[in-house]
């Protein structure tokens, strides 16, 4: 149930990390819309399938445009939007299964093209909507409904993957501090090119990692999340690489560079080559 639609019958579980991400995204959209003086309807949210995908129906305030598409394909849908309509603020919201598993094949080609898309990946290390199967970011050995004897595969390091493919803006955060998170989402929206904000967004039902992330002194849990050293230079690829190789979940901006976007390159190509009108093309087939 959302504020604007009492009939809408989807609910996130109490305490779901996605609530925090939702608040952060709302703040970032509000600020971006005001700062760049664009209509709020120039924001387009593309969602995949999974708990995270329902974000698109739950944004409070005036409704942005949205697509709630199919599992794993939010990036190519977003590419169709942002390449055809570079004036829009195209945002992808996806989960770890959606983005990294079934949708994994789209990350590399997207990174090489560098479309102006902001991706918010909500990582809960589990398939929640289908009731608790293992995902690429589940721990090795983790017991889930689909790995009753423990997960056999190595756990994926998504940040390392993004960096290797050359995603031009990479930030990592968790859902517990929406205000801080929204700053990074806003930066990602402002970034010209493909940006990913990878958010640890725990699943309170199937994979509650709040304690592990934040730590709990009483329980003697140290906490895996750490704030990135303020001296970290995000333009330094090697330093970024060293950072993502560390144990734990870094909080902050990991990497940023500003290569031309695919639309900038395409515009240059159009400027450099004579524009073809249909009449001329037709005449080229004259007998």
């Amino acid at each position: 149930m959302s504020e604007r639609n009492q009939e809408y019958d989807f609910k996130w579980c109490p305490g779901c990390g996605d609530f925090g991400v939702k608040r952060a995204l709302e703040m970032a959209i509000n600020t971006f819309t005001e700062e760049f003086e664009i209509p709020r309807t120039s924001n387009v949210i593309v969602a995949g399938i999974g708990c995270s995908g329902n974000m698109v129906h739950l944004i409070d305030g005036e409704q942005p445009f949205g697509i709630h598409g199919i599992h794993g394909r939010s990036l190519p849908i977003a590419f169709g939007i942002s390449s055809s309509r570079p004036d829009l603020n195209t945002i992808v919201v996806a989960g770890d299964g959606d983005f990294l598993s079934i949708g994994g094949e789209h990350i590399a080609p997207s990174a090489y093209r560098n479309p102006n898309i902001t991706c918010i990946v909500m990582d809960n290390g589990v398939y929640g909507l289908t009731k608790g199967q293992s995902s690429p970011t589940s721990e090795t050995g983790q017991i889930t409904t689909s790995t009753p004897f423990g997960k056999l595969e190595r756990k994926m390091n998504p940040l390392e993957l993004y960096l290797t493919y050359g995603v031009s803006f990479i930030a990592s955060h968790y859902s517990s501090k929406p205000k801080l998170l929204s700053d990074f989402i806003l930066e990602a929206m402002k970034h010209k090119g493909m940006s990913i904000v990878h958010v640890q967004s725990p699943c309170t039902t199937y994979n509650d990692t709040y304690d592990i992330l934040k730590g709990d002194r009483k329980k003697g849990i140290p906490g895996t999340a750490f704030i990135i050293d303020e001296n970290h230079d995000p333009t330094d690829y090697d330093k970024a690489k060293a950072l993502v190789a560390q144990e734990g979940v870094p909080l902050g901006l990991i990497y940023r560079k500003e290569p031309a976007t695919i639309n900038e390159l395409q515009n240059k190509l159009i400027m450099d080559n004579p524009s073809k009108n249909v009449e001329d093309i037709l005449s080229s087939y004259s007998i």
Partner: protein
Amino acid sequence: MNQKIISNDFVIRFAGEGGQGLVTSADAAAKAASRSGYYCQTFSTFPSQIMGGPASSQVRISTTQVLSSGDFVDVLVVLNQYAFDNHIQDLNQENGVCIYNAQDCVPSGEGNYFGIDADKLAKESGNTRAANMVILGAVAKLIDFKLESIESFIKDRFSRGRPGDEEIIKSNIIALSSGAKVAEKSGFNVGSLAPSKPPKHDQIIISGNAALSLGATSAGLDSYYGYPISPATTILVWMEQNLVQKDKFVFQVSSEIEAINNVIGAGFSGKKAMTATAGPGLSLMSEGIGLAWMAEIPCVIVDVQRGGPATGLPTKSEQSDLFACMFPAHGDVRLPILAPGTVEECFIIGGLALNWAERYQGPVIIMSEFSLADRSENIKKPILSNVIDERRNSKSSDNGFKRYQSLGKNGELSAMPIPGNQAAYVANGSEHDEIGDTTHLPKHHIRLTERRFGKLSLLNDAHFEIENTSSEIVIMPWGSSKGVAREAYEKLISDNLNIGWIYSICLNPLPKEVLNELRLKKIVIVPELNYQGQWSSIMRMDGINAVSVTQYTGLPFKPSELAEKIREKIKQTMEV
């Protein structure tokens, strides 16, 4: 020497290995002939490899519109022994002549054939690359085609403002006449091509895929995304070359899964978007097509059919994707299908499909086919100012606007707002309510299922043909078999068989007039290139008494063979 037969129609085939310039030879002959006022149609067959392998390319030249690739070959040019052995049976038994490459071919026995050493003669002309012209000269002589027309074609083709142009033109003309001399000396002649009856209108010579691309572009195509796959690749290449304009976007993406989702994104964002693929790519797109149907997003998917399933016959002819195109996705779907039957219809449908997608807010499938996509034909030059660029109704007010209302009493469809404007909504692949939010309530699933099927009736302005309504037997081809079926039909009519003709470029939804007529018929005979008889199966499902005449050789029908098969089918069904 026999007296020369004057004919309205000749088929000239070049057979050899891929990479030997066979396609160029046929294209050059087609261009030269069409400039002289004849009608032409080319046809090629080649293996799925770049160089080598048995390949052939032919042109049919006629004084009237060419409908098919014909029954026999009147002039066969073979460049090696394999080509001789495998094509000689197609030679017209009455007065066809085969020219063989004297260097690589030793034909057995006696027959209507003679050798020519094209490479040697080309060398003597001063241009080792003019072997094709030697051959073309010989071919022209055999059918009494004026050498001057080819000379003027050569002059145009090689007048490129380069220093060597003069010499190249001269050597090509020498090569041409040396070939003609050999043919003359051979004593053979195939006949005399009747004088042309040039049409009054302007013409272009163009392939099916290029015509489709041009049609789409002239109707306002904004965005194209594609992935290379035979025989659809030429559409991607055409777009990369030509859709280079401000506010347009064309891109080769990394899979067909990307391409379908790209056009969905572009269509949602307000643009006219298209992708083209073949069978394997269509299979990868099926989930996306379901999304476009469910969330009601305009986009066009071109399926240039080849033989299937799996990799199948990537460079051959088959019409076997109809089930996959009409019912591509899981769940309750039935996609609008436009299937061009001629190169001219490729042009028309390229634009019409985009307009339909806008009008009914959903995906439209174009079903072309290898032999149609790849062949060149001279057609009437389209008048661009007649092409309509129809855009979706996007008018909406912010106040309580509902994107997914039920259809109005007269079938009106609620507007589809465009991002950046007011009345934002969520295009949802889950079942949804009026504003696009997910719902599982039966009332919405009923309402919107009916909306999705009901709005198909807006697609009611496609071309169809109904002839000889008095007959209880009718022939109804679809797609690329139209031309050859027409030729067979005319043969049967001239034999006083009482049969009718029905043709529709739209297979779903069938125009009411067509459906009504079909239901009155005792037998509807469908010539189609697949094993199961896919179109007749679908028509039977809709209560039409249809049977198929099938062929699954990887090649198009031949008109005389098809006429016989139809005759046979009529006999069988009437006996039952």
